[in-house]
């Protein structure tokens, strides 16, 4: 099956954006991927072997975290896995948010920080 690699991780797949691997399940395919490209492992998994929270892996159009069989889900030759790190952010940090929450609770109506 094919595994699509996002731009930042291609440094660890010899520049390949799509890698072909064998495997009967999602987990086996990912195992083959990290065996072929060992440096990828630390970018996909924590030291405890759990998928990093910001790494999303999709089997075709489905997040594997929400598949009933998760990494044990069977895959076929025509299936595709996509590794996609999350993208998010925003202009204020958590501390500022907390201050706003406190102000919303305690400050006079209409007051702003």
């Amino acid at each position, binding site marked *: 099956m094919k595994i*699509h690699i*996002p*731009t*930042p991780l291609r*440094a660890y797949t010899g520049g390949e*954006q*799509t890698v072909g691997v064998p495997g009967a399940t999602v987990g086996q395919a990912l195992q083959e991927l990290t065996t072929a490209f060992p440096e990828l492992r*630390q*970018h996909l998994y924590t030291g405890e072997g759990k998928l*990093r929270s*910001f*790494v*999303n892996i*999709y089997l075709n*159009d489905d*997040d594997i975290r929400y598949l009933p069989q998760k990494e044990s889900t069977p895959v076929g030759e025509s299936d595709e896995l*996509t590794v*996609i*790190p*999350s*993208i*998010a*952010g*925003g*202009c*204020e*940090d*958590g*501390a*500022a*948010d907390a201050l706003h929450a406190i102000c919303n609770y305690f400050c006079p109506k209409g007051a702003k920080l």
Partner: protein
Amino acid sequence: MLHLSHADYAALRAHGEETYPHECCGVLLGKASPDGNRVRQIVRAGNTRTDSAHNRYNIAPEELIRTQRQARTLGLDIVGFYHSHPDCPAQWSQTDYNEAHWLGCSYVITRVDQGKAAITNSFLLTGTGEEDKAFRDEPIEIELDSTES
């Protein structure tokens, strides 16, 4: 150096004005080159953080996957992202840093003051992983479109 056409530069700033007072977000498609990321197309994305859209953005992974497929079809890569900071500085925030995972990609931020795009800055996410990642100021080179030169 981030290389961006004038049309794309104007479009991403206009996006921030349209969504004000909420943050806009989108994806930069292009190619990495020895002298920096070269943007060939920008793709608008939806901000899923409707609970706090004035100071947060998030692009749904499903939308990112569609955009990555689009990039492959065009022979391009995802080389960066953009978003707006409504009435906030055009500087990366701690939240931006915590949520940045696309090493080697450009993060473009536009300050939008009272609905009007102000400063636009770019930051290159450098490093080899979560442990040593860092934002580095990245100059933007705005290239005139052929019809404008």
